[in-house]
């Protein structure tokens, strides 16, 4: 166990988060090595979003620790984590509809030096040609797929070492899902570490290095991606079939 923890870029250790009377996360432990793509699957209400939010600092955990690059960042403000290289693409994207695409990106570059910001924005325009055509358009006019791309582009502005994505394919048409998965591949080939929560469990597990299955605030299964994807009882594990 200790050997595995060496060299982990992200270590979540026995994290517990509560909402009032509800314990949404119950001593959850997740380890991520640099360059890995780790999938987090499970039904709604399992606590996946709570886990990501607690990791990035949007929620304050009641117990447990989060270590990023060996440093304890438990309960740190998200702004500090973004500056250090840990970014979250939130569930349902949460782009700023009153701002233009360009402004969304510019704001996301707030932790980056001004000189670099322009350059990054150009890089995003390269990476996401669909956004380039809507550059000065209010983000409220984007389609679901474009909005998701913007959400990812925003997170990339701070050039994160670890990128957390919460259900990036939610509500997207199949062709857009393909685009998102291609994007994940691309990001991974850039050497980034990725933790992705995804509804499309089979698909994401088949491309992941490792995966965790969550239910009701706990990890109920973990293993390598293909191994989990191949499990015949995955659906039952996932959904709690008796």
């Amino acid at each position, binding site marked *: 166990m200790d050997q595995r923890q060496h060299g982990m870029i992200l270590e979540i250790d026995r994290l517990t988060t509560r909402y009032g009377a509800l314990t949404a996360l119950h001593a959850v432990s997740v380890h991520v090595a640099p360059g890995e793509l780790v999938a987090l699957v499970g039904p*709604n209400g399992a606590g996946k979003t709570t886990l990501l939010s607690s990791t990035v600092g949007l929620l304050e955990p009641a117990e447990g620790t989060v270590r990023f690059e060996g440093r304890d960042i438990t309960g740190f403000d998200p702004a500090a984590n973004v500056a250090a290289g840990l970014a979250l693409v939130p569930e349902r994207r949460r782009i700023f509809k009153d701002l233009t695409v360009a402004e969304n990106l510019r704001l996301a570059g707030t932790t980056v030096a001004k000189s670099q910001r322009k350059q990054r924005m150009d890089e995003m325009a390269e990476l996401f040609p669909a956004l380039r055509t809507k550059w000065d358009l209010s983000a409220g006019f984007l389609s679901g797929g474009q909005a998701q791309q913007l959400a990812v582009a925003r997170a990339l502005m701070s050039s994160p070492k670890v990128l957390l994505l919460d259900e990036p394919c*939610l509500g997207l048409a199949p062709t857009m899902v393909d685009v998102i998965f291609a994007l994940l591949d691309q990001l991974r080939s850039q050497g980034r570490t990725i933790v992705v929560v995804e509804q499309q469990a089979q698909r994401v597990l088949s491309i992941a290095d490792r995966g965790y299955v969550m239910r009701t605030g706990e990890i109920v299964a973990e293993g390598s991606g293909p191994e989990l994807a191949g499990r015949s009882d995955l659906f039952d594990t996932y959904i*709690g079939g008796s």
Partner: protein
Amino acid sequence: MTAPAAPVADPAVRHLTGAMSRSQMRSVALPSLVANWVLLAALFAVGVLYASGGSSARDLLISDLLINLVLVLGFHIFIGNTGVLSFGHLGIASVAAYTMALLAVPSERKIVLIPNAPWGIPEIELSPLVASLIGVGVGVVVAALLGFVAARTSGLAATMITLAFLAIVRQVAENRKDLTGGAQNLSSVPRLDGWSWPLLGAFLAVMIAVFFRSSKTGRLAVATREDELAAGAMGIEVFTPRLVAFVVSGGLVAFGGILRVQSLGSIGPSQFSFEFTILILAMLVVGGMRTVTGAIAGTVFITVGKEVTRYLGDGPDLLGISLPVVDGLPDLFLAGSLLAVLLTRPNGLLGEFDVGSWLTRRFRRPQRAAESSDGPDEALDVDTVLAVPAVPAVPAVSGTGAASESGALTTAGLGVVFGGFTAVDDVSITVAPGRIHGLIGPNGAGKTTFVNLLTGLVEPTTGTVHIGDKELRGAPYKRARDGVSRTFQNLRIFPSLSVRENVAVADLIAHDHRSHRSAVSVDDLLALSGLSHMADRTASTLDYGNQRRLEIARAAALRPDFLLLDEPTSGMSSSESLEMVDHVRRVASAIGAGVLVIDHDLGFITNICEHVTVLDQGAILAEGTAEEIQRDQRVIDAYLGSGHG
């Protein structure tokens, strides 16, 4: 399933069930009344002692305190019970007091002071008592008008409107010199000396406040304060309780204003100022705006504090040191304590504490004294540690288990489009009476939106909802009264009410609007849910599983034809989910309702639902029994994704 009994329960039983819950309330109201009266009498006695040792200024202080208490309780009846901030009450008091003054000031004075007053006012001279009664009457009418507007609008708008009202009343009083004497005080108002009327007024105010709180309207108002959305889902209409609360509080404030003016012997616009409003609000909030005891405590605290700071500010010699004269120290104390309480203890120094309930709890079950409802360490409670509800044998209550004769719950082509996005697309389902039907689907499939469409929280773009032949339409509270009751994905109980009261308010509505259905008493529902031994605890102190069961018990108390449960096992372990299966079955059969359950936990769904509909991307993907659904490849694909890209 128990054998169905007669669909309409024996009227005697129905009456008894309803009356029982009402007499329970009496048993809460009377102790509270007596306890608060005793508290008031004790404080008054202390005050008398204090006053006897000094000048008449002290006497004035005591009567001021009592009159302020009347005003504070008036504010409490509306603000404390509805949670809506009103600044306009002293405007009502002003109108009432001016009415009284203009009628009661002796003619010969009026001819001198306001000779040009309209409507023959200078000639009229009524006795102070009659004039006061008329004044209160006018106050009530004004409160009804202002309350009508305030109750219709949302929180902030209501506050602003009442604030504007206060300003308008003051402006009119200052400017209509002919009528009111203008900014100068109108003197020679018949005087009230001594404490008798203020004391009587204070006792009366306590009584009105206590009885209002335990009245049906009061309880409904409090439910809307706790959670407006959940209250609507339980059939509670927000407007009427708020309006009634406003009118009752307006009447009491009118009375207080009249007392005040009569104790001063003169009336002027500056007596009903914004600053005075803040003073009364501070007294209300500092003690705790939700209870009568809090109002009393706050009034005493602020009054005593102001006196002490006034004394200190006059530059007395204290312990040989001569203190400097500081003008305005009492105001500093007032604002300072208000701010301190808001920043640290927003529910007031006393919070939810009421002397009556506390005494009742102490003496009714002395062995339970250790389990006080505000104990934070409920983890030490054996029951919650084991998390096993003590389930008694299902009581044989007459009139239970009757499947409603209502007909099936059907939706026909129900759908809604938000912007360009079709959240729910042409969904038609049927839930047979007394049956348990499941609705599942991956995240974002539109399940909760569907429930919101059913219950009226969201307006559909297409389609209709029926129970049998009757179409369900209108606001959520109407649909709840028509037979559809629900629980919420995010759990919406009434947090500061007791467990019993959570269920009892729904029962109140059912008693009025669903009397044609057989009733399961509040106590039986609590027993069924394993909550009997916690019935007096504050709902927010319950552990999660019990809160979920409470929400279901509350929804059941509405005597619905159909129960809509939105993710009832969310956040529960497998064993807890299994218990929930039993629990939902028990409750549903006890009240004879059909059930539509939304959940992700297929174990739960398989065990409890006879028939399942699967939604994906807003439309129906598949239908069938739970086993069929579990093996349906389309369903598996929808949840897990269609394999490798």
